[in-house]
């Protein structure tokens, strides 16, 4: 699980070009949007695209649960693992 957390953090840094942020700066449990890392709605779209490309997961654009899936690195990891188990 630590590996996939690192992969997700790496993906966030690369895809969102967070040039000043290191892996260890991202708290696995902290919110990605708003108060935490401070990402915005364009970042959410960018991340959705990256997740589909790198982890081959399907994201339903209209799902009410997206907000929960995208809350933190931990919730993204749980979402990816659940999708891959299907």
């Amino acid at each position, binding site marked *: 699980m630590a590996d996939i957390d690192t992969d997700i953090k790496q993906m966030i840094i690369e895809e*969102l*070009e*967070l*040039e*000043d942020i290191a892996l260890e700066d991202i708290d696995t449990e902290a919110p990605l949007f708003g108060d935490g890392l*401070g990402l*915005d709605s*364009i*970042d959410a*779209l*960018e991340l959705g*695209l990256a997740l*589909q490309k790198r982890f081959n997961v399907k994201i339903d654009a209209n799902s009410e649960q997206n907000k929960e899936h995208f809350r933190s690195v931990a919730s993204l990891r749980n979402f990816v693992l659940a999708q891959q188990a299907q």
Partner: protein
Amino acid sequence: MQVWVSQWAAWAPGIASAQQWSAFDPEQLPTGDDMPPAAGVPAMTRRRLTRWGRQALEVADTMAGALGGDTPVIFSSRHGDTARTYKLLESLARAEALSPNAFSLSVHNSALGLFSILHQVKAPTLALAAGRDTLAAAWMEAASWLSDGSSQVLLVHTEEPLAEFYQRYADERDMPAALALLLTAGPASGAVPVELSMSPARGPASANALSVDFLHWWGGSEPALEVTTDQHSWRWSRALAVA
């Protein structure tokens, strides 16, 4: 029409200060991947910018404090951010999804839009392109606003050489550079009176982009610059700064 340049700033790789611009040699255009710090731009916004937008905000930012609530802002660029749009076209050609960030910033007024958001600009803004005449056309636009009652106009020009794929179509020598000019309708202490006039093209066109020739002239000490593009000859002339 005469206007006054009350402030200016320009950036190119390795050239930022007035002293460095006075030594600028258009025979040796700057190259390389150097980026301006754009320290005034919040990091979360800065990360999204290519150099084309970043250098525009680098020079424009120095004048943000001087803008009045009614100061029009003009951003000009002949080609825009072609490296970014070319990447998007490549994605389309491969039937891949487009990057939402790249897509949102692929329009000609993207740098201007970010500037207006960062500085809460509510005055009229305009992004323009006019082929080889772009910088002069932007100046004429600014002069029009000044003659129509604006007391000052911010003019920002940013250029990046064409993306590699388009280089074979390049018809002028270009360099990565951005220029900001705060133009005023009347004299102010330290402001330089400048007049721009246009005539049908006489003589051969310059090998350089208009912004290259302008920056060379502006950084130097010649009283006038006459430069021909494809269709027009432009003449900028300046007098001594107001005491």
